[in-house]
């Protein structure tokens, strides 16, 4: 009977060892463990021939039967099916021997030789089946290795694929970045090109302006000279007329001469206006000449803002305006072309007056016009601000403000050159002009001038 238990033990041991890398479920392992313990106990009992022998022998069959049942009915052990049928004949012969011995020992003596022979055949069967089973197991193992290898290769491929994907993503982002950089460079080029075209246009416009200005200058000089002369002559006529005795005709002539004189004064006035425009056009296209000398900027601002104010008050449409000077104390002298730079102050202040005049006309007495002029020492630069609380400059025209011939003023009021000339003069001083503004609130012209190197 020990043989049956050995078979049980062997089967359990073999099954336990045959577990693949993933192992068996927990309950199956438990069955193996308890089965092996039970087989060991039964072997021990068998060796000791402990009574009741017949019960333990029966239990041995129950155990081996249970194991075979387990093999055949557990899906995880499906591949071990041939293992289950390998010991079947041996167990069958043993069971038969056991039954005959138990029921009739006499019959057993008669049949012993047959049973031995059956036992021998059962052994041959078992060995054959075992060998067969081993072969199957090997095949399964090879298959398993092949599939494992395939799986490994698949995994490798997956890995390579994902590596490639990462690489592709990297390259793609690099290319995208390069594309963006190129796009940026292209945009830069395009805006530079636009600027160049604009500059080219302005340059040719400048030449054209100079040409036109010169052509206009000569006839304009005649208009001015002749009108001036005629006014002088009318004075003389007046002196001569005083010598003629009074008469209604004389009075009529005097009245007419008075009108002619007033007309000539008008011609002279508008002629000199045109002359001023021509002059600034010429200055604009030629650029100022003159020397840069250390200048008291605060003094210059005081003088020329005052001049601008009185000029405005003396001209048609004067406005009430409060001029505040917030000038930095101890401002160092700045190297300036004072003649040119005084035009900057005049232009900016005059510009502020004109802007605020529009707001006064629109709002009336609710609004009090104010111009603030500041200077500040910023270390390596000097800041000059001319700020008005006028109508402000909309964003869309702020860029155009410094362009020649751009004007927001109506009719004959502006040449569109004032700010453009201002900008040119500041540039010729290596300075910068910025415009800050909020519509309806303020406009602030900021001039940054480099300090003279000592």
């Amino acid at each position: 009977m020990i043989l049956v238990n050995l078979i049980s033990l062997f089967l359990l041991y073999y099954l336990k060892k045959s577990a693949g890398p993933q192992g068996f479920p927990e309950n199956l392992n438990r069955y193996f463990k308890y089965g092996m313990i039970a087989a060991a106990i039964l072997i021990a009992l068998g060796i000791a021939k402990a009574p009741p022998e017949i019960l333990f022998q029966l239990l041995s069959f129950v155990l081996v039967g249970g194991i075979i049942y387990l093999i055949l009915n557990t899906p995880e052990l499906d591949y071990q099916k041939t293992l289950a049928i390998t010991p079947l004949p041996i167990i069958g012969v043993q069971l038969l021997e056991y039954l005959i011995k138990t029921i009739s020992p006499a019959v057993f003596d008669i049949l012993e030789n047959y049973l031995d022979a059956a036992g021998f055949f059962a052994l041959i069967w078992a060995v054959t089946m075992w060998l067969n089973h081993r072969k199957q197991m090997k095949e399964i193992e090879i298959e398993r290795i092949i599939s494992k290898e395939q799986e490994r290769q698949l995994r490798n491929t997956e890995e390579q694929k994902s590596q490639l994907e990462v690489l592709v993503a990297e390259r793609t982002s690099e290319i995208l970045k390069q594309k963006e950089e190129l796009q940026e460079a292209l945009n830069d080029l395009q805006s530079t090109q636009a600027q160049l075209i604009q500059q080219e246009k302005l340059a040719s416009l400048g030449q054209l302006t100079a040409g036109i200005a010169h052509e206009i200058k000569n006839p304009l000089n005649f208009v001015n000279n002749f009108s001036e002369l005629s006014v002088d002559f009318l004075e003389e006529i007046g002196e001569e007329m005083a010598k003629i005795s009074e008469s209604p005709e004389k009075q009529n002539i005097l009245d007419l001469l008075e009108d002619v004189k007033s007309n000539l004064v008008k011609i002279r006035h508008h002629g000199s206006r045109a002359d001023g425009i021509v002059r600034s056009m010429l200055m604009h296209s030629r650029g100022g000449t003159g020397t840069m000398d250390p200048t008291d900027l605060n003094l210059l601002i005081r003088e020329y803002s005052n001049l601008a104010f009185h000029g405005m008050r003396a001209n048609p449409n004067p406005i009430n305006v409060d001029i505040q000077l917030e000038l930095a104390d101890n401002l160092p002298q700045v190297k300036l072309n004072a003649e040119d730079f005084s035009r900057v102050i005049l232009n900016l202040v005059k510009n502020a007056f004109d802007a605020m005049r529009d707001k006064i006309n629109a709002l009336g007495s609710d609004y009090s016009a104010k111009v603030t002029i500041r200077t500040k020492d910023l270390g390596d630069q000097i800041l000059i601000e001319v700020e008005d609380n006028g109508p402000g400059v909309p964003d869309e025209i702020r860029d155009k403000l410094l362009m020649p011939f751009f004007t927001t003023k109506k009719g004959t009021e502006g040449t569109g050159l004032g700010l453009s000339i201002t900008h040119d003069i500041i540039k010729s001083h290596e300075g910068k002009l910025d415009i800050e503004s909020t519509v309806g609130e303020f406009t602030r012209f900021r001039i940054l001038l480099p300090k003279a190197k000592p």
Partner: protein
Amino acid sequence: MKILVVDDERDVEDLFRQKFRKEIRNEGLELLFAYSGKEALEILENNNPPLVASVFSDINMPGMSGLEMLGIIKNRFPQLQVSMISAYGDSENYQKAMSYGAKGFFTKPVDFESLRKEIGEILRS
């Protein structure tokens, strides 16, 4: 005392005659006019030594420019005083005029007071 004025603008004649009306009437000033450099040279060529005491010339004229004419006059009649009048008051024109031997340089619009002073000096000399 004769003074020659050269300018391609014909109205310059009226302007000068009216501006110097008193000098013409009372101080014996006589104005001659030429409307091109060539015409001016012809007037000068007809009499040697020239009849005029001084020449006032525009620079920018069609054909012969005032500066060109200045060079020729100074070559032929070194003693003759020539002053230039130009709308282009740039330093290049001024330098050229001076190096060619111009006596004075006036920019347009002409400041007639300083021109009157200049002519007054010529009349008195």
